[in-house]
């Protein structure tokens, strides 16, 4: 079966393959993306072939100058993550026939990260974030004998298995919307890795980790959009790990930040009135004494007032709100 592959080519030396065709400019708003051209190839492969098969075939038979990272071909090593039709996937796990849009498959390096060449992404930002969370065990006192392992229930190890399945392919970071706008965000992989150590019963740095992660560019920089869950080829579900961290951080008392304040104000509002009090949620999250922060929200508040979109000053409770309060009371689970 014939497949058409469009490859985003980039070479800092400015030399493209001899048969390079000028392509369309890359669309904004990723105007920070490295400029690239698209070169089209046609390959003949079995119908169940994956994108990586096509790229290897191109490299071996048509164009030796195509650069890409790959090793295991079986979704274990994490080398071949790239943008395929605009979403970050492992090339070795993406079937060509499922990723054909308008008759072709477009592959390229993700625009939110620097490019070394062609499909070879500069993963330095990724590895830096990984190292930032101090991703190693800071041991609690070792067990009695030197030849003795820690005693931990298997469930505790199984809880960490989801994150340990992470192959550091980078797909989550490549498609992270928050990272695309804010390069300092620690990102899904690093935060999931942080959870793996926070939740390890053998680690002694639990509180310090949570404090650091509650700080700038940590767990509260995540926009909760599930892209990382969707794109992860290993089921790590980084967002779920981030949410667990948020809960642990609030439980541990790290609540003096807008994110934690937002979560508590939200819960308090729903408990009190059965619904969201938009009027007070913003100021409460920003921090009642955060004058600069409050002032920043003023223009949009004025705009909304002008458009008649400001919620009524008197916040009404839903009928039967007692029911809601009873549920809160009964189920509890309130952050301390």
């Amino acid at each position, binding site marked *: 079966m014939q497949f058409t592959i469009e490859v985003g080519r980039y070479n800092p030396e400015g030399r493209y393959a001899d048969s390079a065709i000028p392509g369309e400019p890359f669309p904004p708003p990723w105007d920070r993306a490295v400029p690239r051209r698209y070169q089209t190839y046609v390959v003949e492969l079995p119908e169940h072939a994956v994108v990586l098969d096509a790229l290897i075939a191109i490299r071996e038979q048509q164009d030796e100058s195509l650069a890409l990272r790959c090793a295991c071909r079986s979704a274990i090593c994490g080398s071949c993550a790239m943008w395929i039709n605009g979403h970050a996937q492992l090339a070795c796990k993406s079937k060509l026939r499922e990723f054909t849009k308008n008759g072709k498959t477009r592959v390229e390096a993700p625009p939110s990260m620097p490019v070394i060449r062609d499909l070879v992404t500069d993963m330095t930002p990724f590895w830096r974030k990984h190292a930032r969370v101090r991703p190693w065990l800071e041991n609690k006192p070792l067990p009695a004998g030197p030849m003795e392992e820690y005693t931990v229930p298997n469930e505790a190890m199984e809880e960490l298995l989801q994150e340990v399945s992470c192959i550091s392919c980078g797909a989550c970071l490549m498609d992270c919307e928050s990272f695309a706008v804010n390069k300092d965000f620690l990102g899904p992989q690093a935060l999931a890795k942080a959870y793996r150590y926070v939740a390890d019963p053998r680690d002694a740095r639990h509180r310090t980790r949570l404090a650091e992660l509650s700080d700038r560019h940590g767990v*509260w920089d995540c926009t909760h959009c599930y892209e990382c869950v969707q794109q992860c080829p290993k089921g790590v579900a980084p967002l779920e790990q981030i949410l667990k961290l948020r809960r642990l951080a609030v439980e541990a008392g790290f609540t003096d930040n807008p994110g934690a304040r937002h979560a508590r104000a939200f819960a308090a509002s729903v408990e009190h009135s*059965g619904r969201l009090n938009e009027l007070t949620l913003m100021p409460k999250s920003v921090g009642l004494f955060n004058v600069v922060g409050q002032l920043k929200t003023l223009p949009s508040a004025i705009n909304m007032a002008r458009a008649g979109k400001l919620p009524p000053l008197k916040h009404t409770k839903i009928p039967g709100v007692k029911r809601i309060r009873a549920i809160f009371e009964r189920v509890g689970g309130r952050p301390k």
Partner: protein
Amino acid sequence: MKVAFYSGCVSKGACPELYASAMKIAEPLGLELVELTQAPCTGAGVLSEQNPEVADALNGLILAMAEEIDADLMTICSTCQGVLAGHNHDLRRDPRRMEKVNAAIADQGFYYHGTTEVKHLLWMLVEDIGLERVAAAIRRKLAGLRIAPFYGCYILRPEEYLGLRERPERKTYLERLITLLGAEPVEYRGATKCCGFPMITFNRDVSLGMAGNHLLEAKERGADLLVTPCPLCHLNLDAQQPDAARVLKKKIDVPVLHLPQLLGLAFGMRPEELRLDHHVVPTKGVLEKVELKV
């Protein structure tokens, strides 16, 4: 057809134009909206994060309320859709969780058997009401308009909660509707991305950067306006648009419509009926283009 109508908090708060227009289009679509007036907030995912058991119970309560009147639960907000469908999915698969939820809501006289289907108006238009019926209600074709769909994360991800593995076509309903209404859908990457709303209270500039980027991309692709099935997205894309423009240092000026408003326009209703005069980013430019075709 009868539906258990869940309005969500925002359509009664900062986006009254959504509630108003949803009410208006019910009749031409043959929808009998039985509003669940006593239903609480779903928690919007925030509650699920910090108080998962309370969120379970509240969502279970909403689902039980719909079950009681024996109708599908219709949402008009992508976030409500995602959260309710997510909890529904988990409760159905985990009998222990269901038991806990029912223990919590039993005191209030409710019990959830797990039979409620949660469907956004967007899905119902195609799957239950049917596009022929929608077409039949059109009085004013929106020809000449280039409309960029903006779905909102929670109606697209995670796929297993939203039945998207079984019905992947749900990821294209907005484009289909736009085409049906006579307009041209704009293809751009931001259509399925996050608007940044979840972070607007605690990460303002990043949130605005996200919203602004998607608006600018759509504009670059020739969009006259955006349409979205989520009022939270609408807040970040419309109400916060001037601030987003300030953060990105670029002019945007792209109006954003709610899904029911777009339908209402096509059904021949007046802009005031649909509260199109109550947006932060003026919709006049769009309306002028449409009026010309009448």
